């Protein structure tokens, strides 16, 4: 069964979809979207995943952060701490709605990074799944700026700005336009401050790291995150799913391998033994 839900957040409201299994509920999961146009491109895969997990006994809540999607508020007024707080609201809502106490988070890209950092704010989490997390926010942001230049080049024949001028604008307190989204200096600061390796000691306790690419091994930085999390005492599994980078694609794709592998891990982690 699936239904639209509204999650109260002070004077605001977060819009979401709740997917409940028909039979026994084994666990619950809050899905954390990526941001910007990655939210749009990944939408259908996240829906497919939510339905597959629900059919497998896991209740799922998908929701939009404040200022994003169907939720109230303007994007420019919010940043990472607000969205991490939203994850905690969503988790509480999920528990209240379903009575489930075995709860996990699943995040994609920036949503995975937010989920990783939100873990410490949520008392008891059973597991955390990170699909292609952004480990170093500064590196990610630099890539996004470069993508902006490429898009300008394809629109105008030549990029009209440089990364240096964009960064100068942010330093001067001016928001910059990233594909129709206003990136404020505050948001820039918060994204570029993301460093999951540094946060690993306080990160989640049972983690699935998933590298998503059509081919090739996981990049070194994911292995480093795994090691850092292990050092912090976490149980961490790192796997690869051979799928297209769906969060970047304009067309519609399916990701059966990613969903099946994630489902298998959740089954394992929420089974009675919980051991591999």
């Amino acid at each position, binding site marked *: 069964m699936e239904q639209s839900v509204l999650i109260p957040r002070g004077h605001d409201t977060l819009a979401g979809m709740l997917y409940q299994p028909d039979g026994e509920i084994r666990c619950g999961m809050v899905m954390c979207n990526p941001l910007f146009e990655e939210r749009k491109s990944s939408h259908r895969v996240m829906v497919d995943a939510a339905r597959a997990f629900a059919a497998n006994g896991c209740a799922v809540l998908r929701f939009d952060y404040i200022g994003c999607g169907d939720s109230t508020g303007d994007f420019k007024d919010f940043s990472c701490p607000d969205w991490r707080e939203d994850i905690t609201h969503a988790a509480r809502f999920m528990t209240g709605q379903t009575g489930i106490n075995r709860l996990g988070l699943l995040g994609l890209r920036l949503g995975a990074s937010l989920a990783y950092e939100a873990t410490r704010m949520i008392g008891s989490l059973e597991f955390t799944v990170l699909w292609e997390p952004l480990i170093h926010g500064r590196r990610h942001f630099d*890539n996004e700026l*470069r*993508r902006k*230049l*490429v*898009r*300008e*080049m*394809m629109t105008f*024949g*030549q*990029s009209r*700005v*440089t*990364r*240096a001028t964009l960064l100068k604008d942010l330093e001067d307190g001016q928001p910059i336009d990233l594909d129709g989204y206003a990136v404020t200096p505050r948001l820039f600061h918060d994204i570029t401050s993301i460093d999951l390796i540094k946060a690993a000691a306080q990160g989640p306790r049972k983690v699935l790291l998933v590298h998503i690419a*059509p081919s090739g091994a996981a990049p070194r930085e994911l292995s480093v995150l795994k090691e850092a999390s292990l050092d912090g005492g976490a149980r961490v599994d790192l796997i690869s799913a051979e799928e*297209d*980078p769906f969060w*970047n*694609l*304009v067309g519609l794709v399916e990701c059966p391998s990613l969903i099946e592998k994630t489902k298998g891990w959740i089954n394992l982690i929420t089974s009675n033994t919980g051991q591999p």
Partner: protein
Amino acid sequence: MTEEKIEDRLKRMIASRLFLKIAPEAIEDNKSLMDDYGVDSVSLLELVVGIEEEFGIVIPDEEFSIKHFATVAALAAFVGSKMSAE
């Protein structure tokens, strides 16, 4: 041993990074990468990163110009000039 031409190295990269179902040698030097081979902004960024890795060059922001990325021939000339300069 003959050194592989820049054009051929670029074609291999384009075929693999874009997952085209054609052999690299089937990519024509003077056909439009955007109109004929479906290069979009996402794959173009991948190509930029790939070129920097493969050829050990840096493409400055000021040189993001479509004239350098229009065809394999144009791209090879651009990469060649950057390699000579570095």
